[in-house]
């Protein structure tokens, strides 16, 4: 067994912060799908969009609410929050402000990026139909800071429209936490694009103290499709418990990320390329959790079923890498520590300490007790859930790859830090040998 160690390679940005283990995608491979991504070959223009879907039917707020409730629409930003509840909350106030959050601060994800490139008018139809139903005249579209092509595509699409609704665009900061709801409200309020303490939900008291209906690009596109095509068509795919479809980003570092649209209930493995079968994956992104191949192979694309398995679909991101998962986790936690907004003491003290300890575990001399101690010190002690998400990833690494962590402690990574190309189920066999 080898005792030579390669420290996890941390590349750094110009400002000294650790770079993301996965860079912002320059291009996205968008595959045709059964709902939002049906007909993308006709291009993203307004003319092509109207030819496919026709004009936006007029709805009042009651009709809109009945529709989203009937199809059990849930947010696609990661928390799967019921959209009908958000809508009910803003309807208690007057003239809410609507926000389309396309910042996608999770660089490994590319689904809103994909929608900007292929389906900008479905996103905009969703928010415009809602604005009209709620008699709201102001819509903000938050553009990603690190994806210039997606931002330009949204701007082009907005320039094509004449809806009688004022659509304002703002560009998010290049930071992992910039897309967090309260951070977006801060940005739109003219303050730094960073999380702040939220004393009330945005839907109750958001921008300028007014009820604010904030959702990501995919959620608004689903609303758009529902309004244009009706509940029957929306529910014609998926399962009775979870009707419809959802976007998945398959990210394999080193290649162009692929965005698929899966119907709820589909087998997750059918969206994982053959040459990655047998490998574990990070599901739900950098704030998500590791899953072994056995878990991935039996998983369904389902918010409820994945929760029951202890994983979360999150924003639909599957990150597959042949690199040793302990190494990739260490690099990811270093990056996440550097992405702290530096505002909350437990986060800006605790995450670098946690990163150091995870790297120490990787190097074979880290203390698991110290990791547990630090995890307890950062969880639920900040303005946003950045520390909580980081701890979730670390804990899932420890529980999913206990053998591998042990192998590191004994002085040998069974995977030699990704120098070995993993094929088929060799990863699991290696783990058994370890």
């Amino acid at each position, binding site marked *: 067994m080898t005792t030579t160690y390669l420290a996890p390679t941390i590349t750094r940005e110009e400002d000294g912060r650790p770079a993301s283990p996965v860079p912002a995608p320059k291009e996205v491979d968008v595959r045709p799908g059964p709902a939002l991504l049906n007909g993308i070959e006709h291009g993203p223009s307004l003319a092509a969009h109207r030819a496919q879907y026709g004009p936006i039917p007029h709805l009042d707020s009651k009709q809109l609410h009945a529709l989203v409730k009937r199809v059990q629409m849930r947010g696609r930003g990661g928390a799967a929050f019921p959209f009908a509840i958000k809508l009910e909350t803003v309807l208690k106030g007057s003239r809410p402000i609507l926000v389309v959050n396309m910042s996608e601060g999770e660089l490994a994800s590319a689904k809103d990026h994909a929608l900007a490139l292929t389906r900008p008018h479905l996103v905009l139809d969703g928010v415009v139909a809602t604005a009209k139903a709620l008699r709201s005249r102001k819509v903000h579209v938050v553009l990603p800071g690190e994806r210039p092509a997606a931002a330009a595509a949204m701007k082009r699409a907005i320039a094509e429209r004449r809806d009688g609704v004022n659509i304002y665009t703002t560009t998010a900061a290049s930071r992992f936490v910039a897309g967090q709801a309260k951070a977006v409200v801060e940005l739109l309020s003219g303050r730094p694009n960073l*999380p702040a*303490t939220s*004393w009330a939900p945005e839907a109750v008291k958001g921008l300028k103290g007014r009820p604010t209906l904030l959702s990501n690009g995919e959620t608004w596109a689903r609303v758009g499709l529902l309004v244009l095509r009706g509940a029957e068509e929306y529910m014609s795919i998926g399962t009775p418990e979870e009707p419809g479809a959802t976007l998945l980003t398959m990210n394999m570092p080193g290649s162009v990320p692929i965005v698929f649209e899966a119907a709820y209930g589909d087998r997750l493995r059918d969206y994982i390329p053959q040459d990655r079968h047998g490998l574990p994956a990070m599901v739900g992104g950098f704030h998500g959790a590791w899953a072994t191949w056995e878990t991935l192979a039996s998983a369904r694309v389902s918010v409820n079923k994945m929760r029951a398995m202890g994983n979360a679909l999150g924003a639909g991101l599957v990150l597959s890498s042949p690199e040793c998962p302990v190494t990739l986790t260490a690099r990811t936690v270093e990056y996440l520590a550097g992405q702290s907004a530096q505002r909350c*003491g437990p986060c800006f003290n605790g995450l670098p300490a946690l990163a150091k300890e995870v790297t120490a575990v990787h190097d074979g001399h880290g203390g698991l007790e110290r990791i547990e101690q630090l995890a307890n*010190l950062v969880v639920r*002690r900040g303005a946003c859930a950045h520390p909580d998400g980081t701890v979730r990833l670390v804990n899932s690494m420890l529980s999913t790859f206990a053998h591998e962590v042990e192998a590191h402690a004994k002085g040998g990574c069974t995977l030699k830090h990704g120098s070995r190309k993993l094929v088929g189920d060799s990863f699991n066999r290696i783990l058994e040998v370890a």
Partner: protein
Amino acid sequence: MAQVLRVDWPSCEARGLCHEVLPELVDLDEWGYPIVKGPVTKELMDHAKEAVKVCPRLALRIVEGR
């Protein structure tokens, strides 16, 4: 719903006065930031209000919650 102390984390600068006034409910972590140990009981309410008042960063509130 119980009355709980909630920290406005971006405002908190680990001055530690909350711990001095209310050690029954507030510990300090290794960096000096407050660790709230439990809900505010009736007996401790006056002390909790005092802790909120003396915070030089106005970073502590008593809110409904758990």
